[in-house]
């Protein structure tokens, strides 16, 4: 129930900046020529299907971290791409694991272009941690921090 509500919200975020991932995609279109190489994927593992690079922009923090561990092409795509990191939403299950230090590390991937930061029940986050992130990211226009009990109200 909580999840579906959250997905709704995320869809909204994504349509909002939909055009931007498009601009980085021509780089991947060059993969199109080899589109049939995946036909036998059930038989033996190979390089990732080119379509999956398009999906990266639709993933949340946890899935982005997972994808960057799957293979080198994903790791490189995730690390050089600022776009997926501009809207960061931390909800369950990552909320209880998020410390100030990790928050700063994760938001640094947006290279100062963080726009949306939603920390839902991230109780380890302190004023100092949030302050650091906001100082480094002047473009934040949406901040949503319900249930972050470590912050001064």
């Amino acid at each position, binding site marked *: 129930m909580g999840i579906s509500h959250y*997905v709704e919200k995320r*869809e909204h975020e*994504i*349509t909002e900046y*939909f055009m931007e991932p498009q601009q980085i*995609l021509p780089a991947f*279109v060059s*993969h*199109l*020529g080899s*589109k*049939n190489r*995946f036909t036998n*994927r*059930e038989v*033996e*593992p*190979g*390089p*990732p*299907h*080119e*379509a*999956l690079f*398009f*999906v990266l*922009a*639709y*993933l*949340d*923090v*946890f*899935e982005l*971290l*997972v*994808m*960057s*561990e*799957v*293979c*080198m092409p994903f*790791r490189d795509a995730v690390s050089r791409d600022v776009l997926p990191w501009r809207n960061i939403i931390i909800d369950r*299950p*990552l909320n209880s*694991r*998020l*410390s100030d230090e*990790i928050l700063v590390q994760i938001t640094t991937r947006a290279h100062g272009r963080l726009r949306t930061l939603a920390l839902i029940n991230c109780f380890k986050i302190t004023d100092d941690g949030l302050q650091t992130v906001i100082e480094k990211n002047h473009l934040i226009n949406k901040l949503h921090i319900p249930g972050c009990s470590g912050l001064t109200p």
Partner: protein
Amino acid sequence: MSSSTDSPTLTTETTQLSPQPDTETAKPTKKITLKSSDNQIFEVEESVAMEFATVKSFFEDSPSTDTVPLPNVTAKPLSQVIEFCKEQIKFKANPDEAQKKKYNAEFVTEKSDKDLVDMIPVANYLEIKDLLDVLNQAVADRIENKSVEYVRSFFGIDNDFTAEEEAALRREHAWAYEGVDED
């Protein structure tokens, strides 16, 4: 009537029989032929083909053509993409957001992982934004909360990291994996 050889007349009659003979339906619809890389021919109504921004601009440049070769697109994903666009046109003519959402959800739910993934480059190439959005979100949903090993086997991806590189990434991301189910 059985001896009639004038089939265009018959078509007109059928059109007139439709409950709402408005100008839109009475107008003979132009067909456009799309040819996939595996030489399958798809005849679609012009309105469907115009949903493909790439095809649309092709026609704007050369209006007299009636066959568009699509050398980077195979028949199966193309037929599925056409199916999706036909429905979207109905929603355009008759807007019903709830119905559209329901259709889009069903469209992806019934597709295999491979079908979804194979349609994404096609939707991108043909520049069908709505479909690309629906497909990417659907794949993203299928890997939500999954482990690295799951994603690799799910998509048949080779682990090309050295043990050291993999361990370094694991350490860097360790905080995110506390108590994650390995499914």
